[in-house]
């Protein structure tokens, strides 16, 4: 129905797709997996028309097609939910859903906004979510935005009579379990009308929803399987090249923390976001905070990171009372922050790897107050090989790296700055299984070196697996504390009970 034949695509001479052939058949869900940077998103963008291939052809229903832009894609019944969210935060939900397709609501040149809102509401009802269509998108949670994206892709259904192809690029990485179920149910019920391509780093999900699974590696399709013929661990091995570690979270390497207390919050509170939080983090200790959106855990981390100021209680960093007014003050106290929104707060995307690594502490590469470019590049080259960062060199702009590699650059920055306290806000979001494993290894290593780590993560498993202790928050207050020594990890069910 839609197929790619020997598609090639390079960015500035670096190949991202090296002759990919792949086929999407009517009424099926195709899984697409591969490490970060394997070329999955690039391939999807070629299907959607937002990237033009350098070579090869696309065929739709056997006919070759040329898609010059997203509009051509849509006209061919191809819709996409992008990996990085593509909603406009300054527009309302309804306006976003029908952006680019308003013509159906136009009467005498004017847009009938009411009709559009009704239609948008219908779309959202179809996927079973209740979101105010007049709300500004910036006011929605990440997960809600993802559902809006899906609704938006599905509007093609109304205008295109042919069977559709809906491309879902990591739609689940920010969704909760229940939302994922809603999504999957919707995908299943739409299969009569559309085919889907589903990209995810969660192999179990891929196997659950897909009929067939393609595996990509370094810009090529290296395997194709019927989902019923293969297991998760087998897929993992094909993808990463080695077997799944039994001790995924490296619990065997979890050492007991040291005595020194690096972070000591007493009765901490900030406005109406959280209050009465007591939190001690020792050198070498990983403390995970569990909690739902709105529990106040984000704000706790952002307060310690210097993005917000506390209004109650006290905060001591390495024994000294502090009151941060900017992240700079936190950085000067040896605190490093790894944000969930890598593109926004993690890296200066247009600067090079070398420049990003040295950014938080230029003293490592300055001589007599002047930046030594040679030393800076050498430092970056060193990190690139130590952390296995996949990049042609230290001068490459970070925006050209895949998510996992970007994350490693952020980590390298804080290691260079000698941070003794690290705040990890969803550190593995969007990373492939292999990359995740490497990040876990790094986190363990940092912990062994005596770094105090505060962790918020996508999954409870990760939180429990990595942490020495787990704190649970709800409605801005701490509701439970669990010890999580190796071999004595708390049960997920108990943790969830304290969360809701």
């Amino acid at each position: 129905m839609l197929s790619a034949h020997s598609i090639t695509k390079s960015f500035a001479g670096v190949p991202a797709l090296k002759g990919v052939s792949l086929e999407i058949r009517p009424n099926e869900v195709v899984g697409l997996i591969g490490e970060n940077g394997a070329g999955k998103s690039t391939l999807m963008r070629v299907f959607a028309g937002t990237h033009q291939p350098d070579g090869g052809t696309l065929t739709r229903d056997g006919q070759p097609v040329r898609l010059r832009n997203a509009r051509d894609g849509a006209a061919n019944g191809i819709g996409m939910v992008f990996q990085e969210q593509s909603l406009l935060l300054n527009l309302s939900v309804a306006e976003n859903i029908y952006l680019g397709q308003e013509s159906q609501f136009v009467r005498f040149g004017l847009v009938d906004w009411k009709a559009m809102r009704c239609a948008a509401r219908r779309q959202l009802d179809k996927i079973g979510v209740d979101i105010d269509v007049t709300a500004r998108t910036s006011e929605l949670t990440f997960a809600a935005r993802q559902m809006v994206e899906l609704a938006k892709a599905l509007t093609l259904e109304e205008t295109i009579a042919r069977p559709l192809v809906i491309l879902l690029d990591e739609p689940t990485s920010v969704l909760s379990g229940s939302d994922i179920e809603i999504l999957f149910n919707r995908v299943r019920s739409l299969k009569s009308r559309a085919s889907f391509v589903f990209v995810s780093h969660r192999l179990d999900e891929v196997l659950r929803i897909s009929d067939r699974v393609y595996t990509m590696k370094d810009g090529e399709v290296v395997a194709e399987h019927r989902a019923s013929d293969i297991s998760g661990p087998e897929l993992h091995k094909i993808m990463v090249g080695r077997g799944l570690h039994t001790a995924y979270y490296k619990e065997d390497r979890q050492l007991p923390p040291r005595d020194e207390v690096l972070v000591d919050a007493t009765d901490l509170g900030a406005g109406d976001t959280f209050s009465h939080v007591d939190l001690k983090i020792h050198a070498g200790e990983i403390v995970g905070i569990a909690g739902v959106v709105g529990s106040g855990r984000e704000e706790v981390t952002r307060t310690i990171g210097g993005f917000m100021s506390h209004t109650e209680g006290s905060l001591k960093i390495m024994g000294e009372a502090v009151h941060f007014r900017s992240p700079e003050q936190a950085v000067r106290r040896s605190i490093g922050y790894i944000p969930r929104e890598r593109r926004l707060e993690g890296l200066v995307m247009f600067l090079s790897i070398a420049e990003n690594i040295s950014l938080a502490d230029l003293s490592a590469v300055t001589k007599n107050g002047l930046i030594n470019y040679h030393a800076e590049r050498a430092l970056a080259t060193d990190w690139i090989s130590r952390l296995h960062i996949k990049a042609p060199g230290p001068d490459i702009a970070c925006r050209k790296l895949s998510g996992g590699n970007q994350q490693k650059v952020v980590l390298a920055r804080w290691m260079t700055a000698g941070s003794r306290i690290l705040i990890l806000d969803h550190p593995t979001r969007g990373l492939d299984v292999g990359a995740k494993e490497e990040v876990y290894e790094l986190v363990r290593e940092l912990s062994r070196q005596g770094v105090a780590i505060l962790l918020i993560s996508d999954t409870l498993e990760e939180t429990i697996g990595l942490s020495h202790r787990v704190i649970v928050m709800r409605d801005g207050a701490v509701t439970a504390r669990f010890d999580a020594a190796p071999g004595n990890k708390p049960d997920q069910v108990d943790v969830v009970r304290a969360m809701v």
Partner: protein
Amino acid sequence: MTANIDNLKAGGASERRSALLGLARRLTNKRAAPLFVLIALCVLITIANPSFIEPRNLVRIANSAAVPLTLAMGLTFIILLGSIDLSVEGSLSVAAMVVVLLAANDANTNQFGWLAVFAAIAASTVMGLATGLIQTMLRIPSFMATLGVWFIGLGISVYMLGGSAVRLMDPSIRNLALARFAGLPLGVWVALGAFAFACTIQYHTRLGRYIMAIGGGEDLAELSGVNVRRVRILAFGLAGFFFGMAGVLSAAQLGRSDAVIADGRLFAAVTAVVVGGTALTGGEGGVVNTLIGVLIVTILGNGMILLGVSPYVQQTAQGLMIIAAVALSLDRIRLQIVK
């Protein structure tokens, strides 16, 4: 099985908080702030000099605001895109030049009447479209494309006018400034018409929405199938249309046109747009904001004369007031990054 916990529960606490937040937001609604600044300004000036609220003065304010308002309508669309249009003065002077040279005037024998008005607006619309084409085809920043067009437009009017000031002698066009309807000069009605038209474009058409979308994130708008290039070209054309109207109004008011007829209009217009609360980064604000901004700036000028502020300190006073007005009225919660 991986349990994903981010959003297991979003009810309870967050709902309670969002009600609270909503209340707080309403109390501190910064979006309405420019309106408050405007009202406060009017009250203060009235206290200092009650003739401010005399109907005659209000009519004069409306008259002074007519050209800046029309102009700023066009500029607003460009700023909503996240771009800037420096060609304001060039386009305006071309329109003013065309209208005087084609209508009855004292430099040649043309007498095309209202056709001259259409030609003037068409000329400046074409200049706008050309600007849009230059910007999108050559892929250069609007700042430079429009700076270039500014010089070109000015050069064309200087050439066509031969440096002189040509009088506009067509009585029906002059009536824009001289005749009144319901107490207001016709030019003011035209400006209000321009405002209504701008509102229609912004709030009721695809073009208006696409302009907002591009300002909010050009790459994302493109992913949604918005033809960014076309929208940009149309937006610059639309801006040119408004600049053209403003040029005609200017010529009608002053009864003549010279090449510097638009001198100083650009920065005044940008100031009005920003004071009204439209963000220079694009995607926030709109023509209603601009109406308020234009009124603030016009009334500030009017007020300084009414209060008898010495010309020696007017520039300083105006600078300080503008800083105060913007500082008071910008919606800083939305505008995280101010550039």
